[in-house]
Structures are given as C-alpha cells and as structure tokens.
C-alpha cells in the first residue's frame, strides 16, 4: 500500500517537474512546480515526517510560490512566450545531468548513507514528531538553527534597505 503511494507521488514529482521545465509559459511552469511540491509533501508524510510535510506546503507552496506568481504576473507573459525557448545548450546540459546523476549514484551506492534512523534522532518514534523535532532543534542543532535565522534576518534587512529608496535621518 505504502509502496503504491510512494510510486504514485514519485511519478507525480517526475511528471510535474518534466512538464514544468518544458512549458513556454512561466505561469504554467510555476503552477506545475507547486504541484511537484505537493507530491513532495506526500512523500514526507509517507516517511513519517508529518510536520515537514506541513512546512513544505505552508512555506514553499503557500508562501514562496505565491510570491513568485505575484511577481511573474506583473510582467508581460505574452512577450516571454514569444522569446526563444531553446538555447542550443543541450550537450552541455546533458553532460551536467550525467555528472550529477553519477554523483548521486556514488553517494547512495556507498551504502553507509547516514539516514535519520542511523543518527538516532528518533523523530518517528514519538506520537506526533513535532515535540521530538523541537527538542532536537533546540538542543542538538541549536547552533545551525540560529545561524539560519541570522542569515534570514540579514537577508530581510538587505531587502528592506534595497527597497527603501532613501533613508532619512
């Protein structure tokens, strides 16, 4: 049962992603990316990471992609569709893809890939892994967590400074 759902979601991600990169219309591409995100959230649920699935939908699909659409809608899509869609870089792209594929294969093939269970986070053990996630986030991974928040804060201040034309004293 779970395997069937896994393949359903996986096929969804691959299909939506393929459609996304081949669309000429940017809005269609953005909407297909949302679809891919939703299927990805499904995969997280199957892996027992419900909270992560929620975050995936809330932040990526419901937040970031809406902002993307917001800015894309303000430009003239009609012009973008008429632009050249292919840049004759297929050989280069193919080489990059093969290289990336080989890397992924090499990493996964080593066998000892440290999965969540091997590190003993125990995320899937407690009912509702929100508590477990919070505990790990504020003890074991406090430093990276804080670094990430500082990074976001810096980005936010940068955006405000850029958006504000002149700063009055």
């Amino acid at each position, binding site marked *: 049962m779970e395997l069937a759902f896994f393949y359903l979601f996986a096929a969804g991600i691959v299909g939506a992603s393929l459609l996304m990169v081949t669309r000429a219309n940017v809005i269609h591409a953005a909407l297909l990316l949302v679809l891919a995100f939703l299927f990805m959230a499904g995969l997280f649920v199957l892996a027992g990471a419900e909270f992560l699935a929620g975050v995936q*939908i809330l932040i990526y699909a*419901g937040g970031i*992609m*809406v902002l993307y659409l917001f800015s894309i809608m303000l430009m003239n899509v009609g012009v973008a569709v008429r632009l050249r869609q292919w840049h004759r870089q297929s050989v280069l792209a193919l080489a990059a893809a093969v290289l990336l594929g080989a890397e992924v294969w090499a990493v996964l093939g080593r066998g000892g890939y440290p999965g969540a269970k091997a590190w003993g986070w125990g995320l899937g053990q407690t009912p509702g892994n929100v508590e477990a996630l919070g505990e790990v986030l504020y003890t074991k991974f406090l430093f990276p967590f804080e670094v990430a928040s500082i990074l976001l804060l810096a980005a936010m201040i940068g955006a405000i400074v850029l958006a504000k034309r002149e700063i009055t004293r």
Partner: protein
Amino acid sequence: MGIAVEAVIALVKIAVVLGVVSLVVAYLTYLERKIIAHIQQRLGPMRVGWHGLLQPIADGAKLFLKEDIIPDKADKVVFVIAPIMVLVPAFVVYSVLPFSSTFYITQVNIGIFFILAVSSLGVFGIVMAGWASNSKYSLLGALRSAAQMLSYEIFLGFSIIGPLMLAGSLNMQKIVEAQSDVWFVFYQPLAFVVFFIAALAETNRVPFDLPEAETELVAGFHTEYSGMKFAFFFLAEYASIMVVSTVAVTLFFGGWQGIGWIPLPGFVWYVLKLGAMIFVFIWIRATLPRYRYDQLMRLGWKFMFPLVMANIFLTGLVKFLFL
C-alpha cells in the same frame, strides 16, 4: 476490523460531512442575506418558500443551468482549474475538524498545522483566476488578494501559538480536551482578537474584502466568471468561514465541551458555538466599511504583528514562571 470495513466507514463519514457542509454552506448565503436585511430594516428574500427558505436551492438551480462563459482571451486550462483550486482546499480541511468527541473524519498529530497549510493553498485559486481571466480588474483583485492573504496568514499563524503553548499539542481533539476547565479565550483574549481579525482578512470578508471590492474592481478576481464556476468561489468562501469559525471555537471556546452541567451532546454545543461565531462574521459585514489597501497593511504589520509577538512572549513568560 478489516481494512475494507474501515475504508467504507471513512468513506461514509466523508460523504456525510461533505453533504452536510455543502448544504449548510448554501444556507449560509440565505442566513447572511436575511441577517443583513433585518439589520438594515428590510425583509430579505421572501418569495421562494416560507420566508424565502427555498431561496438557496433556487439560486443553486439557476447557477447550475446558467450559460458557462469562458472569455476568448482567457487562459482556458488555468481558468477552469482555478475555481476547483479554491474549493478543494476549503473542503479538504474538514477532514481534521473535531465536530464532537466521537465524530470526526480523522485525527492528525499536526492537526491545526495541517489546517493552516492546506488553507494557505486557497490563495492559488484566486491568483490563478485573476491571471487567467486576462482582465485588469481580475488581475488587480488577484494581486491584492495575494498580498493580503500572505500577510494575514502570518498573523493568523502567530496568534494561535499562544493557545497552542497552553494546550501543548497540535492535535485538534487534545486542544479541546485541554480546555475542559477554562476556555482559552479567557487566558488568551489578545490572541483571540488578532485571530479573529486575521480570519476576516483570510476569508476576504468585510472590512477586508479588497480583492472583490465592487466599487473599484467590479468584482475583483471573479469578474469574468459565471454559472457554476462563479458559485464555486462563493461555496469556497463560505466553507472557509465555517473552517475559521470552527478553528476559533476549537482553540478559544472549548470546541464541543459544554458549559457547566447543562446536559447537551457535544455536537450540539459545537453547532451552537459555531452559529454564534458565524453570526458575528455576518454582523461585522453589515456594520463596518471597507479598509483602504495601505490601512490594511499598516494595521497588519505595525499593529497586529507586534501584538502577537508580545502575546507569545508573555505566554511563554507566564508559563515559565508559574506553570
């Protein structure tokens, strides 16, 4: 119990909830027209059935039989998907709402978070509708709606953190059970006020109905829609009102828990509280004028945001010191 039996029971539950919710949503339009009419000293719908009681059914039949117009310059596929994209998240959320101590479709550990996540998808339908219509009014409405819903989603999310800290769980049933002594609205009045304002904005209701401000934008994002597709937007809006009202009742008013020793079943309590909540929604629509766009943003970011932050800090402080 076999998996087949469980599946059948789940399907029956889903069918019941879907059917009842659709019917109630249809009658909410009637209720809204009636209440507003009486506040404005009118009678409201009176012709179809006793005191216009069959009006929603007549409206439904009319919308169903109406010609379905798709504008020539519209993006056909997105135009058709958009109303569905609005309606589906609004109904999916019902799967985790606690109607009583025993009647619910499913319990999810991330309950309330699931509701937030799924209802955040509703904005896509609006944005898609606005863009696909290929009309200036629609696009402006969609842009307003995207900015408004994104901003107020943040306050909505932060305002529920206070009660969640008290409940210690994201599970809807556990949140209700945590309020068996005192409702959280007495501990978290500030959070409730912010939640209610944000909920009004999230459901595009007066005084935050800028995305469909008829005086400036004809009808906003659904200007070009007709027939059943048009009806879908309204079904979704009323379904969302019921969802946010249920969340408010669950988080702040003890859900299906009764008051004192009055012996009523949990479901009746839930319906009573929900009805009161929805009445306030309609009452506000009959009372307040619309906000201007800059006022909306100022209210959100400069007033409500610091307020919810202070509320979270205070809740944490009190919990740390006294509990």
